[in-house]
């Protein structure tokens, strides 16, 4: 190829091309590099108009030292070398390939220069972005471990300062944007990258603060729930598949002191018992928790008796439900034990009261029927029979009314109720210690007093303005039994003997008292007036309620 064609190629290639001459001093040391020839592209790449015979120091400032080393090595060895260099003055990156021209003693090195600024800037930007990303990830991890909002903000600032390599200032506490900005030098002009960095740092710190606040709130709410759980008056436990409690509250500790459900704890199984609907005992394997661990839900629960340490059995309601894992397998159970002892015992009391009431009402009705029949059999005018009947039924009704209000009837109240308005015409005296009669005795005695009072109204002391004295006392008899002795005494009359026949009224006193109360009763008609004496044993719960008066109690006056 001839010279012209080389020249043409030299001038038209895109790469910058130049020939440098190595200038040495007398002792063979490289002192300078001079451009002897360059092509048009070289001028275009460097932005210079003329470089021939100029020193490298003037053409590409800052590269002199490096290129001197490379060029002397290339001239000596003949091996080509490449470098990538940044020229601050042009704000450009160059790639240079150095090649020796000529033989071993040559002083000329050819340089092929390429402007690689674009690629280089892209690389640098990428690396900066990667570094920023790493910083942000590290920031995230660090902040996540913290739970105090103030500490999170301070740590974010510290890390930003470390990343920037600045000294920074604390900034106004609480104002995150100001705190972060203060990490840059004063009057700093922010690049777009720095704005993004600030933005992202602030965003992460804010997220961490929000998360910390939520977690704090959650912890507080969990603490409140835990308090409710611990103090709830219902025993609650979560048990494993093996029946061991992993969580139980104070109330549950009462029932499960070993921490194992009874169905899996032979030492405590006998403390619990319950019955199936058909009356069979529930086996430990069918206790609620055991059933729940087999996948069954027992709600609201089964009533079971639990024997406490003091030996007393109390009623409980035991419920249980299975807990499932993600695969739907039973992983444990939730057990609830409620102390329903007081409720159950109140229930039983009500049932007994209701039962007693039914029994008394039915007996009272039977008694009504019998009295009606008997009264009708005594004969006499319908009008007279009606009056007698009315009096007797009223007496029966009165005592039932008294009994419906209380478990027993005060003896004096009973007597005064039966006498009612009749006593106005007679001098009446009532003496005796306070005594509460049980329903049975009250029924018998009220009708007896009624019969005596109605007889006195028709034939005796009340009709003839005499006096009536009712007195009673408690006396001690054989076998240390206490008896009530009640005397009805009419006085102040002058009766013809034998004018009165013994009727149903007398029979209801003389025969009913012994029959129903196991006592004795006598009615005797004297010339001065009628005298009746009734006595029967005082048996707690049967004829008398509560404390009996002592046998030596003096009659009240």
């Amino acid at each position, binding site marked *: 190829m001839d010279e012209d064609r080389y020249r043409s190629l030299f001038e038209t290639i895109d790469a910058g091309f130049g020939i440098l001459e190595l200038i040495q001093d007398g002792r063979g040391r490289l002192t300078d590099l001079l451009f002897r020839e360059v092509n048009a592209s070289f001028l275009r790449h460097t932005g210079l108009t003329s470089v021939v015979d100029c020193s490298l120091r003037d053409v590409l400032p800052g590269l002199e030292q490096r290129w001197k080393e490379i060029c002397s090595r290339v001239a000596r060895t003949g091996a080509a070398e490449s470098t990538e260099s940044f020229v601050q003055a042009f704000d450009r990156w160059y790639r240079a390939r150095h090649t020796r021209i000529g033989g071993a003693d040559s002083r000329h090195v050819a340089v092929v220069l390429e402007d690689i600024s674009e690629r280089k800037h892209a690389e640098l930007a990428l690396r900066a972005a990667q570094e920023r990303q790493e910083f942000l990830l590290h920031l995230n991890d660090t902040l996540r471990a913290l739970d105090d909002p103030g500490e999170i903000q301070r740590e974010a600032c510290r890390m930003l300062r470390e990343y920037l390599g600045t000294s920074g200032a604390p900034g106004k506490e609480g104002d995150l944007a100001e705190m972060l900005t203060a990490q840059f030098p004063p009057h700093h002009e922010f690049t777009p990258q720095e704005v993004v960095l600030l933005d992202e740092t602030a965003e992460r710190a804010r997220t961490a603060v929000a998360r910390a606040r939520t977690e704090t709130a959650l912890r507080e709410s969990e603490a409140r729930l835990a308090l409710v759980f611990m103090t709830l008056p219902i025993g609650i436990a979560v048990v494993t598949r093996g029946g061991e409690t992993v969580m139980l509250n104070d109330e549950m500790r009462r029932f499960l002191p070993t921490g194992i459900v009874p169905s899996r704890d032979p030492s405590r199984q006998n403390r619990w018992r319950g019955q199936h609907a058909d009356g069979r005992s529930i086996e430990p394997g069918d206790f609620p928790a055991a059933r729940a661990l087999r996948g069954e839900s027992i709600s609201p629960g089964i009533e079971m008796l639990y024997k406490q340490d003091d030996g007393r059995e109390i009623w409980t309601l035991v419920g249980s439900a299975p807990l499932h894992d993600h695969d739907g397998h039973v992983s444990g159970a939730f057990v609830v034990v409620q102390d329903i002892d007081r409720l159950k015992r109140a229930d039983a009391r009500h049932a007994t009261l209701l*039962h007693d009431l*039914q*029994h*008394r*009402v*039915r*007996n009272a*009705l*039977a*008694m*009504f*029927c*019998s*009295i009606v*029949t*008997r009264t009708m059999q005594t004969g006499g005018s319908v009008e007279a029979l009606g009056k007698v009947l009315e009096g007797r039924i009223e007496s029966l009704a009165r005592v039932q009314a008294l009994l419906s209000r209380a478990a027993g009837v005060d003896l004096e109240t009973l007597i005064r109720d039966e006498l009612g308005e009749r006593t106005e015409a007679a001098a009446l005296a009532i003496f005796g210690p306070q005594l509460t009669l049980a329903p*049975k005795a009250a029924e018998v005695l009220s009708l007896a007093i009624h019969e005596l009072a109605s007889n006195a109204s028709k034939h005796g002391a009340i009709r003839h303005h005499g006096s009536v004295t009712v007195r009673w006392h408690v006396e001690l008899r054989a076998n240390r039994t206490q008896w009530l002795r009640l005397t009805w005494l009419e006085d102040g009359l002058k009766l013809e003997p034998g004018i009165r026949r013994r009727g149903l009224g007398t029979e*209801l006193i003389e*025969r*009913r008292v012994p*029959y*129903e*109360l*196991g006592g004795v009763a006598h009615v005797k008609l004297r010339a001065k007036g009628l005298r009746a004496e009734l006595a029967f044993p005082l048996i707690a719960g*049967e004829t008398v309620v509560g404390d009996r008066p002592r046998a030596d109690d003096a009659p009240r006056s």
Partner: protein
Amino acid sequence: MDVDVLAGQRILVVEDQYAIALDLCEGLNRLGASVIGPAPSVEDALNLLESKSPPDFAVLDVKLRGGAVYPVADRLDELGVRYLFTTACEADDIPARYRRVPRFDKPVRLTSVLDAIRQQVVHTHP
């Protein structure tokens, strides 16, 4: 009901309410039966069974002063004597082993009870 259908029959009456016991006794007497009792308590009823030859039938009130009538019922079972209950209790309150015993709720219709007694006695002694 014919008079004297229960002639010669000895019937034990256990009932703690005097008036009701009297109604029963009079009703039984009208039909020719002779009444043993009436007894107002378990103790009295057991004493009667001890001192006299076994009755042909018995009418028992369930809830008596001092306790339920079941010891008397058990003694009658031992003696092979049939009986019926008159009661103000609920059926549930009577133990299972007495469920087969005829039961009349109070207040009872006297004629129903007497009719039942007659049928039981006639069935036992044709």
